[in-house]
């Protein structure tokens, strides 16, 4: 009985972290952001060239694709540490969207799954979830197949059958797009549980937010150790110490909530949705606090575009807002706890 991820999962995530520290450092991330609007098609705007292929080679693209279809065959508890690393790097790649799409298709099985999952695992196809026929979609700019959930179930809609307009946002590395699905387009994905997929995505994003919070805390602590004012490092001032300690506490207490939610979703427990919302809420709150504090500790330099911090801030604000805002998730929990 453990709340921590398995050793194997942690080892895999460590390997991902290594790769990202080499291929997606702040400089690469900055270049990816600056690429927006520079390419011809815009299809890969904001991404790190060649990185998805390398991630696919490691097994990240097919993280949750069954082994018999070429994937790593992990469930959400095993995949979670990878999402934490994606957050830590503010990774501008469709790792969550593709994974949750793959999880949905794996759960449903059938023709669509068998057609697409091998391509997903090979890094040749990217997926995205769409919440309605006219929606803002994270990774929508990049996706080859859209899994559209509505009251009638889930439909798989190829990119040719949707209109995709990039939606310029504060976070150019999110592939955010407004996606309009043509009437009657796509094929139904029988047996697909769209609600569970939504919860799955919430937990994955919560994992990213935990990684983001840790990364911002590390940055702020590192800066507080070297930046001097009044003749000493600002990290020796109690006001700075206490703000950072509070971020450490918030982040430390969010992580087990996210881990638990991964378990609940993976095992489809009765508390699945509540646990998933709790994860998104706790991680979103902690990451927002980490962002505020990191900026305040960096002060002027943190407010510049030249400093790298801002990319983590913007990713945090974006993810805290996407997949149900922090407020929305708490309201969902409150309705369940209290009725009404």
């Amino acid at each position, binding site marked *: 009985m453990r709340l921590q991820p398995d050793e194997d999962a942690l080892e895999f995530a460590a390997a991902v972290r290594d790769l990202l520290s080499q291929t997606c450092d702040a400089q690469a991330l900055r270049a990816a952001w600056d690429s927006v609007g520079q390419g011809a098609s815009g299809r890969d705007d904001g991404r790190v060239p060649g990185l998805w292929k390398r991630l696919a080679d490691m097994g990240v693209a097919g993280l949750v694709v069954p082994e018999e279809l070429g994937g790593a065959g992990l469930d959400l508890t095993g995949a979670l540490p990878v999402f934490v690393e994606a957050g830590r790097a503010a990774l501008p790649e469709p790792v969550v969207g593709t994974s949750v799409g793959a999880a949905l298709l794996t759960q449903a099985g059938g023709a669509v799954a068998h057609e697409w999952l091998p391509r997903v695992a090979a890094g040749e196809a990217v997926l995205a979830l769409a919440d309605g026929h006219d929606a803002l979609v994270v990774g929508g700019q990049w996706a080859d197949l859209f899994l559209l959930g509505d009251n009638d179930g889930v439909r798989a809609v190829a990119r040719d059958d949707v209109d995709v307009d990039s939606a310029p946002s504060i976070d150019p590395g999110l592939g955010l797009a407004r996606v309009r699905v043509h009437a009657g387009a796509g094929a139904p994905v029988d047996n697909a549980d769209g609600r569970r997929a939504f919860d799955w995505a919430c937990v994955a994003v919560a994992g990213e937010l935990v990684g983001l919070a840790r990364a911002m805390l590390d940055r702020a602590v590192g800066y507080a150790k070297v930046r001097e004012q009044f003749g000493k490092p600002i990290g020796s001032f109690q006001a700075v*110490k206490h703000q950072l300690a509070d971020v450490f506490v918030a982040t430390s207490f969010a992580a087990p909530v996210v881990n638990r939610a991964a378990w609940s979703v993976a095992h489809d427990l009765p508390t699945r949705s509540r646990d998933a919302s*709790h994860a998104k809420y706790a991680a979103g709150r902690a990451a927002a606090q980490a962002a505020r504090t990191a900026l305040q500790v960096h002060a002027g330099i943190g407010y510049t575009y030249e400093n790298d911090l801002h990319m983590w801030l913007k990713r945090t604000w974006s993810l805290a807002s996407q997949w149900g805002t922090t407020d929305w998730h708490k309201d969902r929990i409150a309705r369940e706890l209290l009725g009404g």
Partner: protein
Amino acid sequence: MDLTVDAAREQWRAEVREWLAANVPAEPLPSLDTADGFAAHRDWERRMYDAGFAVVTWPERFGGRAVDLLDWLAFEEEYWAAGAPVRVSQNGIFLLAPAMFEVATEAQLERFMVPMARADEVWAQGWSEPGAGSDLAALRSRADRVDGGWRLNGQKTWSTRGTFADWMFGLFRSDPRSLEAGSSRHRGLTYFLLPLDADGVTVRPIRQLDGEPGFAEVFFDDVFVPDDQVLGEVGKGWSVAMSTTTSERGLTLRSPGRFMASAERLLDLVRRTPQASGRAVDDAVDAWLDADAYRLYVLDTALRAMAGEQIGAESSANKLFWSDLDVRIHDAALRLLGPAGLLTETADARWLDGYLFSLAGPIYAGTNEIQRNVLAERVLGLPRA
């Protein structure tokens, strides 16, 4: 990550639950901080002991059941959910006992553990002094070497349970040179166990916010303590005490079950308060979620401890979280109750009692300001001022 629950643990939980359902007093006991209440709580501890539930993590030879941390957490969840009394023996069984099991002699274990578990001997703590609250290393009460033992002089304060307790554990300065400039003030302290009815001991109750004597000042005037009442090595009291305060801040001081039970009662209060302010309801839901988060965090810590990891300064995070949480739970409740929540002789007055008690949380066992310093310096590695 395997969160499945096995049958043996479920059986343990069921056994605990069943016994509590049959034995927890229907009416709340009188306040622990009155003589009558103290006696009633002592009786309750004996009943627990006789049933084998007083010290479930202890070895069986001292009346325990030798259960692991997970079963202990389950026990605590059931205990508080059942509305069972607060533990009058808490100082002894949760704060002193871990240090005893680490450094006590076999003779000391034989002498002290069972009376502690049965609450035949209830223990008070003797840490703080008037000039040494947050700055515990500044302790001045002294112990002077005499034939066959030590003579204690000085004063302790904020001694929880001090008014009615039988024994005290505490730190005294056995090497006065350790206070001199250039010395490490942590050195030269020795950990003593002593009866509060010894010659030369004077106990002065201190009334706390609610007017009841929850703690005491204790004065020492040439109090003789024999050598076999020194716990651990002479001069090494600080490290013995730290093993205690680590457990105090860590797992054993505030088990999640307590906050989960309060948070559940808080949601009940929301449900029977249809006119409640949305803000108060929202704060109640926040508090419930954070109680759940606290449960998961402690569970995670317990699992890591069982896997052999050392739990260190992160326990300060624990203390910051639960002490803040406890205030928020009770603050939300009082806001839901409105003016009626401040009445002292109603069925809901336990919320008020709980609120007052919660306000001490950010102060005792190391103020939250100190805990933040500890986290910043020892965990995050920020420089000392």
